[in-house]
């Protein structure tokens, strides 16, 4: 049986992680092709509802990534985002959303290798967890019964 290929959506900021992922490209570092990047001006712009929407629409895992603390292009967008994520993550955990499927990271424009690593480890860990059937059932998304190989 073919290995389960998780769908991973990445929400990243334009100035650090998007640029870092560009550097992964220019450095020709290979990583898993399961990830799809959505670009935002800043992690401060990333609405938590979008993360839920991604799960609604069938994502198995999510990456949220931006500038390291103190590196924010807008000085403090990432600090706001960090607080919001802390609250968001608590609530997810309390409601029973599998927080292992949401990876938060700081990837700077210089950390091309780190980006590849983040993607690869996320893909591997989500693959290990299997498809997010629990959520898909609630979201009335098709669940492949035998998909976990």
């Amino acid at each position: 049986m073919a290995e389960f290929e998780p769908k991973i959506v990445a929400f990243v900021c334009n100035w650090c992680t998007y640029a870092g992922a560009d550097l992964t490209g220019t450095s020709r570092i290979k990583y898993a092709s399961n990830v799809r990047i959505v670009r935002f001006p800043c992690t401060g712009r990333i609405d938590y509802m979008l993360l839920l929407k991604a799960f609604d629409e069938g994502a198995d895992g999510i990456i949220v990534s931006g500038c390291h603390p103190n590196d924010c292009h807008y000085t403090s967008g990432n600090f706001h985002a960090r607080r919001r994520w802390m609250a968001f993550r608590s609530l997810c955990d309390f409601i029973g959303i599998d927080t292992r499927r949401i990876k938060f990271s700081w990837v700077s424009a210089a950390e091309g290798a780190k980006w590849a690593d983040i993607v690869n480890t996320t893909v591997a860990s989500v693959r290990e967890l299997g498809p997010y059937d629990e959520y898909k059932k609630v979201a009335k998304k098709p669940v492949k019964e035998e998909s976990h190989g």
Partner: protein
Amino acid sequence: MDDLRKRAKELIDTSAVKVVIGYEQGTGNKTRALFVENSEVADKLIFDSRCVQNLAAYVTKQEVKSKGKMAITATLPVMRAIIQLASEFQVNDDNLIVIGITPESKIIDFKNLEEVETYVHQFQIEIDARNREILDKLDKMTPSERWKFWIDELSPCFKCYACRAACPMCYCSRCTVDFNRPQWIPVSSNELGNLEWHFMRAMHLTGRCVDCDACANACPLAIPINLLTKKMIEDAKSDFGGYQPSLKGENLLSTFKPDDKENFIQ
């Protein structure tokens, strides 16, 4: 109770306010909100342990606001809500007088909101023992078990929005749930729509909720949705050192500290 009625009459008679918001005897053993606009009606005012509805929810309602300056009988949760609303520019000394009621049913005449704030700040927001027990029980579950718990609990919700109407903090003129470009939250009352609605509401109340339980009390299906906000209060305490409604307007999620501690960002 006489003090309360006297004070209400005085405020109306001197035209200090146009309306006094309080409680009256409702049907059965219930109490309901009373809007005193002339001094005769003031005799209907009551206050006892049954009066748990958070009257602060009325001060942002257009119908009430349009009457003119208001006075409100306020227990501790109501006072907290008033301070939070003031920090969000919804009420101020020009349009609201607070008649405080202590746990011993004594009246406090507050001169201004600053005094209310000082009073409120004597007390921390604390989760009661019964709910703490439930939270502890939930904490001990696996995420999957919690997921099942919440899907089950929330599934009967038919989105009557009584919780929203009862909540003093849900005063938005347009709720996210009513937003349709894009449709963030499914309108239908299915499992997903219910989950997302209550999830979003809990997020919106993080750092703002005054723990008055009005939402859960208002729910016709007795869904314990207040557990969500209580959990957020608990976590705010451990993650950010807690919060208090404050006239300075420092909201928990709209501010930050550069050294906020987290342990999950890689």
